[in-house]
C-alpha cells in the first residue's frame, strides 16, 4: 500500500467515526444544540474541552514555531496553559452559577444593558472569526499534504469538510465526537514523538528525552542542538534572544485570551454543578498538558533531525547534502511530497550540486560563506506549519504513523473550527437575533439563522485564510489578543466588582477591542488584506511590542476606561449588586435557564 492510500485510510476511518457519533447523538432542541443538556461528567467535559481547545495552532503549528526559535517561543506553552488557571479561579465556577447559555448573556444581564450584550457579541464574533482564519491555515496545510495537492486547493476542500461537519450537530453531538477526536489527536501526537525520542535519546517519554542525553554523542540533547545550530549562524536554541517586555506581554495576552474565548468558556456551562466546573478546568488542563509537555520535545528533536539531514556528513566541515542525494535517497522523499504543497522549497543558488542550509541574515556567517563559496541559504522555504506533519516522515517512521498524524492534525483543526463556528452561530442567532433584533423568532428560525451564520463565518475565514496574516499559531495568537482585550476584563469586572456599571462596561469593551484591532490592522494589514499595513512586527509602532502581544495592553485600556467611565456615571442598581452577590455563592445553582 502506498502512503497516499494509508493516509486516506486513516483520515477516512477517523472521519467515519466522528460522523457516526454525531448522527448517534444528534441535537434536537435549541437547548441541546447549545449546551448538550448539561449531563456531561467533568472528566468527559475536560477531554472534550481539550479537543475543542487544541486546534491546528497547538497540533500543527506550535512545535514548528518552537523548533525554529527555541526558548523565545516558550510563550505559547506557558500562555496557552496558564490561561486555564485564570479560567478555573476567576471565571468558570461563577459563570456556571449564573446559569445561562452564552458569555454575552452574562454580560448583558450583569451590566443590565442590551447594548452591552450586543457589544459582547461583536467582540466574540471578531475574536472567533480571526481564530477560524488560523484554523483554516492549518486545515489547508493538512489537506494539502494528505491529498498531495497545492495548499490553496487543500484549503478549499478543507473548508467544505469543516462546514459540513459543523452543521451536522450541536454541542451534544460535538461533545462525544470531541472525546473521540481527543483520543485520535493525542495518540497521533504522542506516538511519533515516542519513536523519535527513542531514536535520539533512548528515553520513551519525549518530555524527559528533551532533557536527556543524545545517544549518538553522549552529550545532552540540547547541548548538541545548540552547538549545531549556532555553527550555522542561528541563535542558540536555549538562550533568551527576544525582547523580555514583548515576551511577558505576549505570554500574558495568550493567558487572558484563553480565559476570554467563548468556545472554551461555553464548555463550563455544560457541567452539572459549580463544583464540577472547578474540576472540569483541571481535567481539561490535564488532557491539554499531555500534548503541551510533549510539544517542546517534538520541536527540539525535529530541529535536530532536519539540521542533521541538511548536513549529513557531520556539520559544516563535512559538507552539505547533495542535490543528487535529495533526488535519489528515499530518506529525502518527504522533501518532494512537501514541495508539491508549495510550502517547502530549495534551490542550488551557487550551482555546486549541494544545498547549504544556514542563516544568511547573520553577518558573522559572511566570511565563512565567501570562503566556502556559498551564495545564501539554499533551503529557500520551510513553512513552520509543516513541521509536525512532516516530522514522522523526516524521522523515517513507518507509513501508518504518518497516516495517523494526518488524521490527528485534521481532528485538531476540525474540532476547534466546529466549536468556534458553534460559538459564532449561537452569538448571531441566540444573542443578536433572538436576544435583540427579533425576540419572537421560532425555534426553527433560530436554528436556521445559526447555520447561515456558520456559512458566512467559514466563507470569510476561508477567503482570508488564502492569504493568512501569519502561521496558524500566530494568527490564532491575534484572536487571543482580541479576546483578552475585550471579553476577559468585562467578565472579571462583572464578577469581582459590584461597582462597574453598564456604561463603564460598554465603554471598556469598545475601547479594548478597537485599540487592539487597530494595532493589529496597522501591523498585519487592514482586515488582514496584505500590503495595507503601515508597520511590521519586526519594527512595531510602540517600542518592541508586537501586534500579537498587544492584547494585554488592550485589556489594561479596557479596565482603565471601564472604571473611569463608571466613576462618572450613575451607580449600579441594588438588584444587580444582589445578582453579583448570588453569582459568588455556589448554593442555588439550578439548571441553566433560557430566556
Amino acid at each position, binding site marked *: 500500500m502506498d502512503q497516499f492510500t494509508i493516509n486516506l485510510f486513516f483520515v477516512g476511518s477517523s472521519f467515519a467515526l466522528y460522523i457516526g457519533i454525531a448522527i448517534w447523538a444528534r441535537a434536537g432542541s435549541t437547548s441541546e444544540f447549545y449546551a448538550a443538556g448539561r449531563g456531561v461528567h467533568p472528566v468527559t467535559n475536560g477531554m472534550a474541552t481539550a479537543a475543542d481547545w487544541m486546534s491546528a495552532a497547538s497540533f500543527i503549528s506550535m512545535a514548528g514555531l518552537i523548533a525554529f526559535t527555541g*526558548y523565545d517561543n*516558550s510563550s505559547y*506553552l*506557558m500562555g496557552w*496553559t*496558564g490561561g*486555564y*488557571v485564570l479560567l*478555573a*479561579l*476567576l471565571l468558570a*465556577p461563577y459563570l456556571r452559577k449564573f446559569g445561562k447559555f452564552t458569555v454575552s448573556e452574562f454580560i448583558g444581564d450583569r451590566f443590565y444593558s442590551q447594548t452591552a450584550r450586543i457589544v459582547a457579541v461583536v467582540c466574540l464574533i471578531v475574536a472567533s472569526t480571526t481564530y477560524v482564519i488560523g484554523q483554516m491555515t492549518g486545515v489547508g496545510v493538512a489537506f494539502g499534504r494528505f491529498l498531495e495537492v497545492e495548499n490553496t486547493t487543500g484549503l478549499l476542500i478543507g473548508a467544505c469538510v469543516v462546514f459540513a461537519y459543523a452543521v451536522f450537530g450541536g454541542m451534544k453531538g460535538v461533545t462525544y465526537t470531541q472525546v473521540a477526536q481527543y483520543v485520535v489527536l493525542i495518540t497521533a501526537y504522542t506516538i511519533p514523538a515516542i519513536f523519535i525520542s527513542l531514536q535520539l535519546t533512548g528515553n520513551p517519554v519525549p*518530555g524527559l528525552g*528533551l*532533557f*536527556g*542525553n543524545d545517544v549518538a554523542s553522549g*552529550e*545532552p*540533547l*540540547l*547541548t*548538541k542542538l*545548540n552547538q549545531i545550530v549556532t555553527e550555522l549562524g542561528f541563535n542558540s536554541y*536555549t538562550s*533568551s534572544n527576544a525582547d*523580555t517586555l514583548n*515576551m*511577558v506581554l505576549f*505570554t*500574558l495576552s495568550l*493567558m487572558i485570551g484563553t480565559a476570554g474565548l467563548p468556545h472554551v468558556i461555553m464548555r463550563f456551562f455544560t457541567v452539572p*454543578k*459549580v*463544583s464540577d466546573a*472547578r*474540576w472540569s*478546568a*483541571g481535567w481539561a*488542563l*490535564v488532557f491539554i*498538558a499531555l500534548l*503541551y*509537555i510533549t510539544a*517542546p520535545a517534538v520541536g527540539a528533536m525535529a530541529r535536530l533531525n532536519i539540521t542533521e539531514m541538511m548536513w549529513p556528513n557531520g556539520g559544516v566541515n563535512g559538507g552539505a547534502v547533495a542535490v543528487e542525494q535529495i533526488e535519489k535517497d528515499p530518506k529525502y522523499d518527504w522533501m518532494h511530497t512537501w514541495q508539491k504543497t508549495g510550502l517547502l522549497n530549495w534551490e542550488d543558488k551557487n550551482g555546486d550540486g549541494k544545498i547549504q542550509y544556514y542563516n544568511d541574515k547573520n553577518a558573522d556567517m559572511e566570511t565563512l560563506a565567501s570562503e566556502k563559496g556559498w551564495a545564501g541559504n539554499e533551503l529557500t522555504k520551510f513553512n513552520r506549519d509543516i513541521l509536525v506533519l512532516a516530522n514522522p516522515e523526516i524521522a523515517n517512521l513507518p507509513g501508518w504513523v504518518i497516516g495517523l498524524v494526518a488524521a490527528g492534525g485534521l481532528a485538531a483543526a476540525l474540532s476547534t473550527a466546529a466549536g468556534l463556528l458553534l460559538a459564532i452561530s449561537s452569538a448571531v442567532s441566540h444573542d443578536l437575533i433572538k436576544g435583540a433584533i427579533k425576540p419572537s423568532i421560532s425555534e426553527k428560525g433560530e436554528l436556521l439563522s445559526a447555520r447561515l451564520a456558520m456559512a458566512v463565518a467559514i466563507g470569510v475565514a476561508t477567503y482570508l485564510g488564502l492569504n493568512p496574516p501569519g502561521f496558524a499559531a500566530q494568527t490564532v495568537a491575534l484572536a487571543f489578543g482580541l479576546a483578552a482585550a475585550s471579553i476577559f476584563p468585562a467578565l472579571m469586572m462583572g464578577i469581582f466588582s459590584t461597582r462597574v456599571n453598564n456604561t463603564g462596561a460598554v465603554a471598556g469593551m469598545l475601547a479594548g477591542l478597537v485599540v487592539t484591532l487597530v494595532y493589529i490592522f496597522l501591523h498585519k494589514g487592514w482586515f488582514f488584506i496584505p500590503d495595507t499595513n503601515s508597520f511590521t512586527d519586526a519594527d512595531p509602532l510602540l517600542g518592541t511590542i508586537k501586534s500579537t502581544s498587544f492584547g494585554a495592553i488592550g485589556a489594561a485600556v479596557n479596565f482603565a476606561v471601564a472604571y473611569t467611565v463608571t466613576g462618572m456615571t450613575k451607580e449600579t442598581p441594588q438588584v444587580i449588586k444582589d445578582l453579583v*452577590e448570588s453569582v*459568588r*455563592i*455556589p*448554593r*442555588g*445553582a439550578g439548571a441553566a435557564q433560557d430566556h
Partner: protein
Amino acid sequence: MSDNSSKNAYWSANMRIIKISLVIWALVSFGFGILLRPLLSGISVGGTDLGFWFAQQGSILVFLAIIFFYAWRMNRLDREHGVEEE
C-alpha cells in the same frame, strides 16, 4: 441561605486563596520562566538551565497543581460555610 456576615467571610476566604494561587501562577511563569531566568542560570538541567525547564514544562505542571488544589480547597470551603449546592 446563610446570613450576610458568613457570606462575606466566605468571599474573603475565597479571595485570599485566589491571591495566593495567582502569586504562585505568576512566579513560575513570568518569574522563573522569563524575568528571573538569569538568577536560575546556575542550576543546570539536561544541557540547559532551570529557567528553560520552567518556561517549557515546569510552569505547566505547577498550573495543574494550582487548579486541582483550588478545586479541592474551594469545594471544602463551600461546605465549611454552608454554601455548597444541595
